[in-house]
């Protein structure tokens, strides 16, 4: 069977003030990435990008973004991402940068990576907690996802070709 192969870029939006993350919208990211590619790679780059380019998932609470593009030229988008320095939403400009965490072949592998990554982040947060209440909260969070992992671990880690298209 012939199908179009895609790459999914799992990115994290880093802002100074986390509350401004809530303004995050699919459209603003879509336009910002498109503009960055147009600037760095010109008409040729934008034309390559536009095929099958989509923002698949935005989490306004954690700032996680999932972008889909064609496998053959995901480098174009990868190299343009560092040039994004602000996102615009409803006239408000939020200075930020996009940090590409993972490039995967399917949404599922990206999700697996995200779970692993978030767990690691929790472990890192633990020593930085200031009071007991915070510490308790993080601890219980770590515990809950570790328990979840126990169940998942049996699943094979192989990258399957499950596709959302």
């Amino acid at each position: 069977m012939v199908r179009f192969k895609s790459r999914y870029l799992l990115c994290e939006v880093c802002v100074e003030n986390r509350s401004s993350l809530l303004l995050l919208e699919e459209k603003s990211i879509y336009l910002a990435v498109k503009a960055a590619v147009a600037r760095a790679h010109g008409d040729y780059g934008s034309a390559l990008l536009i095929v099958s380019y989509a923002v698949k998932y935005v989490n306004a609470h954690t700032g996680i973004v999932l972008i889909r593009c064609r496998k053959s030229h995901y480098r174009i988008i990868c190299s343009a991402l560092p040039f994004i320095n602000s996102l615009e939403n409803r006239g408000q400009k939020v200075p930020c940068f996009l940090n590409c965490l993972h490039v995967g072949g399917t949404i599922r592998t990206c999700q697996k990576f995200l779970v692993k990554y978030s767990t690691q982040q929790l472990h890192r947060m633990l020593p930085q907690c200031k009071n007991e209440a915070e510490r308790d909260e993080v601890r219980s969070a770590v515990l809950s996802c570790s328990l979840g992992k126990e169940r998942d671990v049996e699943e094979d880690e192989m990258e399957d070709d499950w596709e959302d298209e």
Partner: protein
Amino acid sequence: MSPELERCSRNLLICEKSNFRDERARYDIHVSKHFFNYKLSMVIPECASLPACIAGVIQTFSSYYRVRDLPVYKFLQEDILQKVVKNGHFYALSYNTRIDEDNTIAFLPSGHLIMSVNKDTYEQLGLEGKPSQYTHRKVQRYVVNVDLTDKSMTPGAKTYQRLITSLKEWVPLKSDFLISMKMTAEDDGGALQTLLSQYSFEEYRPTLQTHTLKETPCPSLHSSNLHGDEKSCDAHRFLEWLGAVSMDISCNNEASSFLSTYVCPEPWSSMSQGLLCTVTGFLIPEDIHSLLLELRHYFDQPKFTSWLSITVHGFADSPVSWGMTEHGFLKGGENFYNFVCFENQDYWLHMATGSHDGCPP
């Protein structure tokens, strides 16, 4: 980023090093097999004006003719075929025909008729040919190669008759031609003159231009070192420099210059003066060979320079480059060779071709 954008068509450069006195040296074959030459340019460092002996040889270069609308079959008439085409020193190339769009016709001194024709003409001609090596999946161009010295091509033979009929009746191919012939003792070109006189033609002499170079950086060359290292520059850099010199391109650029960062290849020394001499026209290999012999004698008297160079450019639209190797255009159709002659009779020979060309001999 995009690998498909970074690919380039291939090019070939053959570098040879040998000595003129070596019996095994094949430089004369390479010269005589490059049939259609459009231009030659000489660079002689530390030389103010063209030496009389070299100028004398250039004076003796054969004239060439340009004939308008000459039908191809006229060359194949019995007396012309015997006295002109098959005499071993006859060169003819269709003029102002482009190898990638028009029908191109060439007569080689070996007695071959080569026609590079498009598909329609080929099918109407009904002659045996081969698809061009440089076409895409769909063949659009064919090469018909007829050996006129073959027994089946004697006037009166069946294949000869067929060739005449197809060129005379089926497809009356005609074109402007550039014609040149080395006059020999037994043949004064009378037969050729009778043919030409039936059409409008002009006679031309190769044009000579000289130019003096002043205070130019000049790369140092060592005859024993063809590869190029810290003592001597490599072939590509040297050919680049030759090109820069012949086109009056400045070789003194700052590395920070906005326009150009081209510099003369290292190591170089300054040349107080130099001679650049170009001859343009329809030049035949016999003449180039005699010029090369004369250049070898340039070092008989002591000179300030240890080398001199001569470059011969072929016609971009000729159907052959060396011998009968098929030639095509694609991007530039370049086919040229370059001799660097050294004081001790060593020589370097560079032969270069573009993408639609076989490997030089």
